[in-house]
């Protein structure tokens, strides 16, 4: 009897050990590709990095020269996306967290945000083509592409803003209002500053996604090859993600170093945004006093 009991407990422990080992292996195999992929791109691409590569336009059918117009294009598109999506997303997040009552309309807004977040990126591209490029006649331009990317980024910014605002304790608002501050004064001077790190993290993560997207700008603003920088927001532009697609599938005989170099530049751009967001969040968590 006693020996039997001991036997089951040993077996139990063995099962547990195997189970934990299996789950550990799964987690390891999940992150292994990302680590090795980034390492591989860094090794393969770092040889291409030079001032010329970053500051010159492509030449000889893109098989030589640099990627300057694509870098500038991606910066412009990211900035354009921020200009439209940040104020709107912030305001919408404030509305849902601070003003909205729990009624049918609010529930509809929530469903709309969830639905927007799930719309495939290429469908955003179609929408941008239909509304901005053709209907509003903005043409294939930085403006059309930025607006399309903004609407795609909006749900991310709204949700993270709402979440950050909600994490500020209700007593902050009650105390402020009881001291005679209006609702807007309370939001502006008490709630928003407290929620700011969370909001900024969300904005950066949203813009990070926009910066790396290709499908929404394919038919709304991305150009195959432009030696000169765009002169106005109504011009099309080169962009890093689209450029990677072009040189890895559309240009025969493309030197492999230039391909890896371009991918590395986009990766550095995107991952540094990711890193900044992570640092802001970690820092805010450490400082938080409530």
């Amino acid at each position: 009897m006693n020996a039997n009991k001991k036997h089951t407990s040993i077996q139990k422990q063995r099962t547990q050990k195997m189970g934990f080992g299996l789950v550990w292996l799964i987690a390891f195999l999940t992150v292994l590709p990302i680590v090795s992929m980034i390492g591989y791109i860094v090794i393969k691409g770092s040889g291409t990095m030079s001032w010329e590569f970053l500051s010159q336009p492509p030449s000889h059918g893109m098989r030589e020269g640099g990627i300057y117009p694509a870098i500038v294009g991606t910066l412009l598109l990211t900035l354009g996306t921020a200009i439209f999506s940040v104020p709107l997303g912030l305001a919408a997040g404030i509305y849902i967290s601070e003003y909205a009552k729990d009624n049918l309309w609010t529930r509809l807004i929530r469903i709309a945000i969830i639905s927007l977040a799930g719309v495939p990126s290429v469908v955003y591209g179609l929408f941008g083509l239909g509304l901005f490029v053709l209907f509003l006649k903005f043409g294939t331009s930085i403006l059309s592409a930025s607006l399309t990317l903004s609407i795609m980024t909006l749900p991310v910014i709204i949700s993270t803003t709402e979440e950050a605002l909600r994490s500020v304790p209700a007593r902050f608002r009650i105390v402020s209002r009881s001291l005679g501050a209006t609702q807007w004064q309370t939001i502006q001077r008490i709630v928003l500053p407290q929620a700011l790190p969370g909001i900024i993290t969300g904005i950066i993560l949203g813009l990070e996604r926009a910066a790396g997207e290709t499908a929404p700008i394919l038919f709304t603003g991305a150009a195959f090859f432009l030696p000169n920088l765009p002169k106005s927001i109504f011009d099309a532009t080169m962009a890093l993600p689209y450029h990677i697609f072009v040189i890895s599938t559309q240009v025969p005989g493309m030197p492999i170093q230039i391909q890896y170099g371009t991918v590395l530049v986009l990766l550095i751009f995107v991952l540094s945004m990711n890193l900044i967001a992570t640092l802001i969040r970690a820092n805010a968590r450490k400082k938080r006093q409530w």
Partner: protein
Amino acid sequence: MREKWISRSIQIAGFSSILFLLLIFIFLIREGTPALGEVSLKEIFNIRWYPIEKYFGTLPLIGGSLLVTITSILIALPFGIGTAVYIAEIAPEGIKQVLKPLIEVIAGIPSVVLGFIGILVLAPFLRKFLNLPTGLTAFAGSLLLAFISIPTIVSIAEDALYAVPQSYREAAIALGASHWETIWGITLPAARTGVLTAVMLGIGRSLGETMAVMMVTGNAPVLPIKWNSWFLPVRTMTATIASEMGEVASGSVHYHVLFFIGIILFILSLIINVTASWVTFKKRSREQAVS
């Protein structure tokens, strides 16, 4: 006065997401429904996609999307759930601090970069390893999609596991269950609605993914019904829109049909996301009723 003006504009901004969702729907309908007048429904749901010869059968594309999406979820599921269990239930704090940002990094990698690696590393490897004529196949696409949907599955499944009350675990341990038995027999089953949501949103993510799939699936619009379809080129709905929209004249039949495919994608994503949120919402209201 100023306060009133501010509140007004904030309110308008709050409703903007409804407006944008409606606008997307309206413009897809506006550009896509003329297809139904130009091509019969029977032709649209036919098995031959060859637009130059005016064959607009979308079944191969729908089939391609289904094949890679379902395969990718089957691959991603054990990895996503396993990783979530490890992070939420087992991992020591230090490892957690490394794993979680790494998963977030996966989510942040642009899909065009994954497609690029898919072309240069994954496809040649699969071609050699499985001895195929080309590595650009449905299976290569499924692998990339699995990788892309893992962060979605991990983060939602993780939240679901955290939401399981601590008392459940304590009760199981007190009754003599081991830590592993508690996870397998109590925590994971208690979190099953959350896990279901994770799966659905993972499906949504895979179905809508464009660039990576377009770059590695070989782009052949063939209905994937053979036993070896995984190891043949296919083409998804998203890839078709992305690769052909740039070349069609706006207002042509081909243009309208591509928008029609967009409508199908939009409606599928809507169904998936609304159902997923509805499941979560129902669960939450039940929990509130209990407590």
